[in-house]
């Protein structure tokens, strides 16, 4: 039982990261209908930037906002410079551009910082507290920071004029333009915010998975799974989906181990986590593409 609680708790912690990435993916998807395959590599690049600033002597809590802001600018410029001219391009061109971005960010991180694994110190103090047998301080920290970030984003979209304008631009670009909202600007802003959220996710997960150019590939896959489970058209759903997938991932491994112990038959364990994500992705896409909380899109023919 104790193990089960531990697994759920650490699932929640991983889920926080998946939730951030899923949210970043959804923010881009709802406004542009694009799936950002480079989201993970962008986050990885930001994590490296954060490490670099810390190496230069900044503390984590100073470096993080700086990096988030730089990532925001990178996101805005990627949208404006590279994706904007392809507004009406066929899907294949868009996908190819994203794969190109993925390749560039991946290899640039390798060129600049090398491929050896780097230690990324946890920014959270190593203290004992009630329940610290179940969950480590860094894991608690990940969940708390994620929840604060999500709360801030929610408040931003719900209560600020820019947030309202961004929602309008995503939901109905034509009407939004008619009431004087600069839809183009809003799309770029959405991209920038998504990159910033991804940056926070990358910097938070770096102490767990260690810093190297491949660190985000599997995490991105879970981010996709989370976004799909929650519904790729629903920001709140994506967050919930991220947490669900994080817990599910650990539970599957846990029950797989249990099964092996009791019957001696190995079906699934830690080595198959990506397969679990793949199965989630394909199952959701084929059986319920709108996810748990998304709305069904109706296509006019």
């Amino acid at each position, binding site marked *: 039982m104790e193990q089960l609680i531990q697994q759920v708790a650490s699932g929640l912690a991983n889920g926080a990261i998946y939730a951030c990435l899923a949210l970043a993916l959804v923010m881009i998807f709802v406004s542009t*209908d*694009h*799936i950002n*395959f480079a989201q993970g590599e962008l986050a990885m690049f930001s994590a490296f930037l954060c490490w670099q600033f810390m190496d230069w002597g900044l503390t984590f809590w100073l470096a993080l906002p700086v990096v988030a802001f730089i990532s925001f600018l990178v996101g805005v410029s990627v949208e404006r410079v*590279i994706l904007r*001219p*392809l507004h009406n*391009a066929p*899907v*294949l*061109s*868009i*996908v*190819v*551009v994203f*794969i*190109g*971005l*993925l*390749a*560039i960010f*991946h*290899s*640039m991180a*390798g*060129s*600049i910082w090398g491929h050896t694994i780097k230690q990324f110190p946890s920014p959270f103090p190593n203290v004992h507290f009630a329940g610290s047998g179940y969950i480590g301080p860094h894991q608690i920290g990940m969940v708390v920071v994620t929840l604060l970030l999500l709360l801030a984003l929610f408040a931003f979209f719900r209560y600020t004029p820019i947030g309202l304008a961004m929602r309008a631009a995503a939901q109905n670009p034509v009407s939004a333009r008619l009431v004087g909202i600069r839809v183009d600007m809003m799309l770029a802003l959405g991209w920038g915010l998504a990159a910033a959220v991804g940056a926070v996710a990358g910097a938070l997960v770096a102490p767990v998975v260690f810093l190297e150019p491949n660190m985000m*590939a*599997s995490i*991105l*896959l879970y981010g*996709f*799974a989370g976004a*799909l489970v929650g519904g790729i058209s629903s920001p709140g759903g994506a967050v919930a989906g991220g947490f669900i997938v994080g817990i599910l991932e650990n539970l599957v491994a846990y029950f797989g181990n249990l099964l092996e112990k009791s019957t001696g038959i*190995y079906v699934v*364990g830690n*080595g*198959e*986590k*990506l*397969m679990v*994500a*793949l199965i989630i*992705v*394909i199952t959701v*896409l*084929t059986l319920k*593409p709108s996810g748990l909380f998304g709305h069904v899109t109706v296509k006019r*023919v």
Partner: protein
Amino acid sequence: MGAAKSGRRIGLWLLLLILLVAPIAGSKLGLISNFMVLQLSLMIVYAIAVLGLNLLTGYNGQISLGHGAFFAIGAYVAAVLIDRYDLPWWSTLPIAAASCFVAGYLFGLPALRLEGHYLALATFALAIAVPQILKYRHLENLTGGVQGINLIKPDAPFGLPLNSDQWMYVVVFVVAVFMFWVARNLLDSRIGRSLMAIRDHAMAASTMGINIAQTKAITFGISALYVGVAGALHAIIFEFVAPDSFRIDVSISLLVGMVVGGVASLFGSVLGGVFVQVIEKYADAGARLLSQSLHLPIDIEPWTIYGIALILLVYVMPTGIAGGLAALWGRIRRRSGN
């Protein structure tokens, strides 16, 4: 017209003959090394794989970012059959083809419900998960787990005066010519036209009586078959398979090859195969040279070139090198005609 057509056909046969004989002769005369012969074989192998992806993505409009998975299946089927079951190498090619057709068809069935971005997403997930699938514990007896499988390159039969690299070049070349010939005829047939009709306007195609679901699933199977044969050939001439050589890089290489060579073009697939192997082999050296000559403080990596090439091509030459050459040729002809 008839004379021109048969003349062109003779020209094509001559060209093929030269392409087949020249490297062998060059290698016999000591002009090119066995290593170069192997590189040429690998280019042809990748050309087959890029053609496979092109059949699905270029001609049928189903975007796959996960064809490395079928490449891996083909490679592993060949390697396991040769290593564990002592089958002769040539018999593994049809078996790899059949297994990949089935695998592709089965993956194509759920993919029927997916379009555009969603299909790209599902196949992207597949590509990321491939190494873990290959390391699955119950398959370890067959696949050798993380260690992979070592093979030995087959020697030429019947006492032919060829070393194994030269012999495999002949084999790969003949297989490739056969598969391109089949693909050309397939595309020129009823099936091929329905493929393109579905890509261009699915609903119009279905009102014309094309069974969209079946055509798409079969295309997925055929596409996987091509990539699988390429994978099997790769395993045989490269003499090694391991899970970590089938990371997402393979899928991305095939996509790059298709986009650079030419989407929906047979000639473009050949160019794409050449490009993939050249970049894989020489980009490291080329990138180092580039960063030195530009006095950059960092070493550029091959993937940076991949990425920039991809994005530039989408803007400048969306039809790839083959399409660009065709447009150029058309312009020259028009100008000389006037």
